[in-house]
């Protein structure tokens, strides 16, 4: 039986803005060629994580606004490469890196809270400092932005994209787990994985109740990673993959660096032996390598980004 999902918990006074953002997000989804609504899925997962971190009131509202509006910058400039399969050129990658700054500006134009604007600006910052646009690292990245980074990636990996099919949820979890401490805050990853595990157990219990299958048919197991790594606490059974065969399942190359999830060009061929080869982090792609003389696209003059103050001025102009 179809059960409609409950509306996101915005205060009555913020509902109109939320509806407006959902509408804009739908436009962004169309531009990016997504079949499923990405921003609302992201907002729902963000809400789950935010609850785990006990975020309430205006902080929660600002975060949910940021989840809905995180790709306003993409909507702004509608690049054709978003729909193309294959890796991006360096120039395209740098161009893509502009979207958080453009998104911040779009959020300001919509009169979204400053907190929301900054979360949108920083939703591609990486835990290890190699994200963009500001290269923030670890706890210097606001918690909300760290949540968005993880949730955005997980939602992107588990949804169809114009250039690839959706990954199996367990594959997506493994990718997210592997990027903990690199792209993602390990604390946020831990909370996400625990939530997904709980959901799996809940669904399994529901299935038992509905089908009358014996309980051990749906027992949840744990995989042990070979080598020196401690075991990853990831279940090896799901509705889609079936029981663990003992063999590691291949994970297709993908990108967690961005949603849009293209992966810029890669390093030496002889080192590309890992199927979990993820997108290079931020600072890896100069446009000048392939397009000498061209202006760098990433950080081009953006109105309001860096207001100048007249000579010897004491009156610094306010940023947004």
């Amino acid at each position, binding site marked *: 039986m179809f059960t409609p999902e409950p509306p996101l918990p915005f205060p009555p006074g913020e509902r109109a803005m939320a509806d407006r953002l959902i509408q804009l997000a739908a436009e962004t989804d169309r531009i990016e060629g997504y079949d499923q609504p990405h921003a609302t899925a992201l907002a729902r997962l963000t809400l789950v994580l935010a609850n*785990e*971190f006990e975020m309430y009131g205006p902080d929660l509202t600002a975060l949910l606004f940021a989840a809905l509006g995180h790709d306003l910058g993409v909507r702004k400039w509608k690049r054709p490469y978003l729909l193309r399969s294959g890796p991006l050129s*360096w120039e395209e990658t740098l161009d893509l890196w502009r979207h958080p700054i453009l998104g911040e500006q779009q959020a300001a134009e919509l009169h979204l*809270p*400053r907190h929301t604007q*900054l979360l949108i600006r920083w939703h591609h910052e990486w*835990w*290890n*400092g190699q994200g*963009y*646009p*500001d*290269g923030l*690292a*670890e*706890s*210097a990245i*606001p*918690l909300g932005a760290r949540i968005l980074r993880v949730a955005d990636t997980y939602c992107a990996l588990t949804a169809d994209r114009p250039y690839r099919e959706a990954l199996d949820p367990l594959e997506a979890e493994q990718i997210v787990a592997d990027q*903990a*401490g*690199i792209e993602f805050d*390990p*604390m946020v*990853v*831990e*909370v996400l994985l625990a939530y997904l595990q709980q959901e799996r157990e809940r669904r399994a219990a529901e299935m038992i109740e509905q089908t009358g299958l014996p309980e051990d048919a749906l027992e949840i197991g744990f995989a042990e990673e070979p080598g020196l*790594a*401690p*075991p990853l606490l990831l279940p090896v059974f799901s509705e889609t993959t079936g029981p663990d065969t003992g063999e590691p399942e291949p994970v297709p190359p993908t990108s967690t660096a961005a949603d849009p999830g293209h992966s810029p060009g890669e*390093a*030496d061929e*002889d*080192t*590309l032996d*890992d199927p979990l*080869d*993820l997108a*290079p*982090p931020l*600072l*890896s792609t*100069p446009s*000048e*390598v392939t397009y000498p003389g061209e202006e760098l696209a*990433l*950080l081009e*003059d*953006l109105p309001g*980004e*860096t*207001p*100048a*103050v007249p*000579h*010897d001025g*004491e009156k*610094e*102009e306010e*940023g947004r």
Partner: protein
Amino acid sequence: MRAHLLRPASASPSPRRWLGFELNILRRLKFSTIAIPFSGQPDLDWYLKFWGKEVHSNDLCQWAWWMARAYVENRDERLGGEQITQLLEEVYVPPRRLDNPVLSRIFNELDAVWFDNLRGAIERLDSPYHQALAISHALMVGVYSLSFPPERNNLKRPLSDVFRQYIRQQREIHDNGRSNRGSNREATEFIAQVEADLMFTRFPSPEGYAAWSCSGADWKEIWVRGTSAEWEALRVNRQGRLGETVLSKGYYLELVAQFLGTARRIPMWAIAHTEDGFLSIAELATLVREFRRVEAIYHKDFSEVVGGHNTYLLIAR
């Protein structure tokens, strides 16, 4: 979960940089050669190199210098399969004793062995740029290792795997045809001799290097140097120089003024400043005006979020 938000600061110093903001302004300026006396992690330097600028990157810390050698000075060398094998083949073999015993106070036992062995293997690489690249990747692996408190170790991967991943994802090494250099000198000495038409700087905090050391964030330097002794000596010998611990604004401004007096020979300055309650941009601008005209002050307000600040970039020439 709220308690987790109050965990102590991480083991690496939170950068007080705002790369997007700073690059956005620098790209508006006309210059050919830039000197960066307090570089830290040379991310901005790397960008500028790819914009075709000649970059002279300096830091007193050797870890930052090695990174500058890898990404700024290095023209086209990369780590190949042979070097990677050489680096990692015996990296988990427990030694009789650690060459750098301080590592055991920084990392868990297994990771301390890994870092100690890797440092030795890096020494055996032939090319200084291969060494620099390996050190740079290992530094990132160190950040990775220290990101996992014991209760979160279930998410931690073997360090060699992470090291390989960083090699695969390393930044593009590009020869821009300029004589880019990384230096490891006292900032004033560096700025007294470097030839450049723009200086970009973000001055050290009044707490200086000592605060960095006390926070435990100096592990990078201890690992790169192979000992904590030299670093301690450098730290202690900073009296009268920018980067020593100062307790008053007056003394801090005096040290900044000394530095700017030396930097007078460089035609244009871009000074990044983040207001954190100690020194205002107005006070800094007043000091700079004693040397030259302040042409513009760019401002970005990040203060809405916890840990965010008003940040500025002052242009003077």
